[in-house]
């Protein structure tokens, strides 16, 4: 008996070691790719295989970043874009959820609005950029509006479909307790839809980045999108690349934040 359990646990240890080894090898492979990519980019520029004026170069990007930082510009631009983005996806999600609640509340309203939502969802919202600028003006409010516009319709559609998928039997239980429509919303529809809303939030972070960057391309005087456009116009590819890298890092960080939020909210689901 004892012999057997020891044997099993040996086997299990082996298994764990193998899994760890595999994870380690994946990590090493990832870092190696990154290292060789940067190294060959740098060397290709040094030895004239590519023209750093057009392709930029890791060392030049680093220098640009340091300069931006020294001038006190770096965090200014990052902050503006990040704040616009946060306002964009938070209000896009809230507004979308609010409208979804209205649609759930009145099935008449939801039927009336259905074709409009379908058309608006199909429309590439970026096409409305110039209209927003004319209406709202040449500044951050337009950029935020762009970010909201791009995420709100899809939020309405996903959150609403989450609402109507809530188990009829759960609603039936509340009804037999004598619940009002508002109580049904509060006690079951909203809490049951938290995962849907959080996953909409996660998607909206990405959509909002698109809205903010396009908005900044169109109107802004500051922000990462502005740096990219400006860098392109004056042919400072170092600036463009540096801004894109910061943008990638910021987007990845925010996405990770959302993943953590989702995890902590799904604890009650038993995993």
């Amino acid at each position, binding site marked *: 008996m004892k012999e057997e359990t020891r044997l099993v646990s040996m086997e299990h240890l082996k298994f764990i070691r193998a899994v760890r080894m595999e994870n380690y090898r994946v990590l090493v492979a990832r870092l190696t790719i990154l290292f060789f990519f940067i190294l060959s980019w740098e060397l290709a520029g040094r030895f004239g295989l590519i023209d750093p004026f057009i392709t930029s170069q890791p060392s030049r990007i680093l220098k640009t970043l340091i300069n931006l930082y020294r001038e006190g510009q770096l965090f200014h631009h990052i902050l503006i874009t990040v704040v616009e983005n946060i306002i964009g996806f938070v209000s896009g999600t809230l507004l979308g959820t609010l409208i979804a609640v209205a649609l759930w509340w009145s099935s008449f309203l939801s039927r009336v609005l259905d074709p409009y939502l379908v058309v608006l969802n199909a429309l590439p919202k970026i096409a409305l950029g110039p209209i927003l600028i004319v209406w709202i003006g040449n500044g951050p409010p337009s950029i935020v509006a762009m970010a909201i516009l791009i995420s709100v319709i899809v939020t309405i559609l996903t959150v609403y479909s989450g609402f109507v998928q809530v*188990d009829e*039997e*759960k609603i*039936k*239980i*509340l*009804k*037999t*307790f*004598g*619940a009002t429509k508002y*109580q049904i919303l509060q*006690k*079951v529809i909203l*809490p*049951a839809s*938290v995962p849907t809303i959080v996953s909409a939030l996660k998607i909206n972070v990405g959509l909002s980045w698109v809205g903010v960057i396009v908005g900044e391309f169109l109107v802004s005087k500051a922000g990462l999108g502005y740096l990219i456009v400006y860098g392109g116009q004056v042919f400072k590819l170092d600036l463009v690349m540096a801004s894109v890298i910061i943008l990638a890092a910021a987007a990845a960080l925010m996405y990770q934040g959302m993943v953590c939020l989702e995890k902590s909210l799904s604890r*009650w*689901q*038993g*995993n």
Partner: protein
Amino acid sequence: MESRVIVDVRNLTMKYHTLAGETAALNNLSLQVREGEFVSIIGPSGCGKSTLLSLICGLLSPSGGNILVDGETVQGPNPKIGYMPQRDQLFPWRNILMNVTLGLEVQNKLNEKTRSNAKDLLVKYGLGDFLYHYPAQLSGGMRQRVALIRTLAIDPEILILDEPFSALDYQTRLSVSDEVKRIINNEKKTTILVTHDIAEAISISDRIVVLTKRPADIKNIHDIALSCDDISPIRRRECPEFRHYFNLLWKELEVK
């Protein structure tokens, strides 16, 4: 000793309307349930059993006829009636205690006293160690017991159970129906249960109502009298008359 009639279904007719047409679910059905009775309803699939329960719960309004509960016509959900669904339908984001106090919360009756009553019920029926666990941490049988206690927490006079054990595996199903019967007996509630399982119906009920196929009407009503006068459904299955009732009901349901 004849107790009073607590649920009086009178000439109930129910039709569902859709664009595709009209579905008659109940046809002039009358049924009386007495206080303290345990009545099971069996009938072919789709004959209108759940419809009958929804009408008694006041969730649908009938096309014809009416239902009296405790002498009053049913016009909407009624706190005298507690409904327990097929799957436990516990809310996964609420702990066990909060699931059980849901009805009190909805009825604005949640206070220190009612909360502690709910706790006592859970403790009394062996769930005292799980007050602050979440439904996902409990087994299927325990969850079904919590669902029953959630229904009992609003202190209804009548329990309506729609195939409450059918989502459980056979073994669990036997032991849960045993516990449910014991709890209901203890709390002295009138119960109407819908089931597909003939043996379950015989083992748990005082009376079995057999419905015709759709649109449902009463086909027959059987008083179940077993010589071993036990309340445990598992032990009642051992009674000599059990087989007799089983064959009787089996044949009755089989006839086209």
